[in-house]
């Protein structure tokens, strides 16, 4: 008995795609941004709920990884204290290239409510590591985090190419 051969787009069988290597790499990277499972403060609670069933961050290819060696993106979710800042920097340095940073929430953007009198707070995680996307909010809603994630994906898509990335 012969099985019918179905035309399918899912497997890509029988189809040929012509592309540049850069585009392919960028597409692969943006479709599987593995996130370091790392939370700092109350923003981390929002981040966890973004990863849970209702907002389902995994549909964007974001999988929490417990090791910096296996992760592509680190979401700085919360207040970066001076004590934590050197640890954050070390984690970032342990990640393999290409690596991306999302700064989630006002605290990690600029110090947030600790701007004036936070003797123990780093006023912005960009003082120790380079940030790709800043997400405002205190804490940002899951929709905002997803929006920031999609912005990062657009940025990765435009990487190394002569197209302009618009904020």
């Amino acid at each position, binding site marked *: 008995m012969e099985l019918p051969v179905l035309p399918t787009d899912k497997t890509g069988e029988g189809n040929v795609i012509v592309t540049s290597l850069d585009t392919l790499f960028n597409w692969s990277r943006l479709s599987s941004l593995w996130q370091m499972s790392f939370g700092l403060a109350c923003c981390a609670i929002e981040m966890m709920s973004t990863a849970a069933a209702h907002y389902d961050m995994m549909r964007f290819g974001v999988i929490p990884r417990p090791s910096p060696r296996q992760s592509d993106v680190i979401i700085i979710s919360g207040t970066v204290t*001076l*004590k934590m800042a*050197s640890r954050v920097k070390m984690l970032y340095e342990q990640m393999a290239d290409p690596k991306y940073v999302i700064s989630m929430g006002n605290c990690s953007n600029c*110090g947030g409510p600790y*701007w004036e009198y936070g*003797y*123990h707070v*780093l*006023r912005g995680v960009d003082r120790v590591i380079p940030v790709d996307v800043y997400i405002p909010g205190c804490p940002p809603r899951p929709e905002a985090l997803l929006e920031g994630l999609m912005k990062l994906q657009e940025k990765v898509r435009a990487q190394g190419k002569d197209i302009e990335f618009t904020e």
Partner: protein
Amino acid sequence: MEQLGIIERLQSAFGETLGVWHASNSESAYARRMGSFFQVSDPARLLELAFFLRDEPALAFDSLLLLSSVDHGDGSLSVVYHLESTVYRHQIVLKITRPMAQARVPSVTSVWSHANWQEREAWDMMGIRFEGHPDHRRILLEEDYPGHPLRKYFKEPDFYHGMKVPN
């Protein structure tokens, strides 16, 4: 036991020079109870006093509700002890004041073991040494943090581990 009765009891055991009772004249009964305090004059007798308060059957102050510290802004620091007896439900507040240059008081960890972390916090934030403390480290900030941030004239460092601190 009423608070004045407790003070009379203390003064009959230790003498009139033990300290001075400062009564609050607030309208609220709770504020009168927790706002009145006994100013202990000699820190060398604090430990003896603390053991007496805990072990005397009629007093039985078996719980240190709160150990806090005050910077008066005039060059003196205070440690405030809120004590409660879970047997008799009575409370008393002790206060001990030291000039900033000799900010040393005996540790009461041997009397109430839950003073341990609270004394470490008072050291961390206000810079008060507790003599005889079993583990006299900072509790929140890093060991090499310059200064004690809750002091009135504390100035945060410009740089900490190469990171710029003020905004």
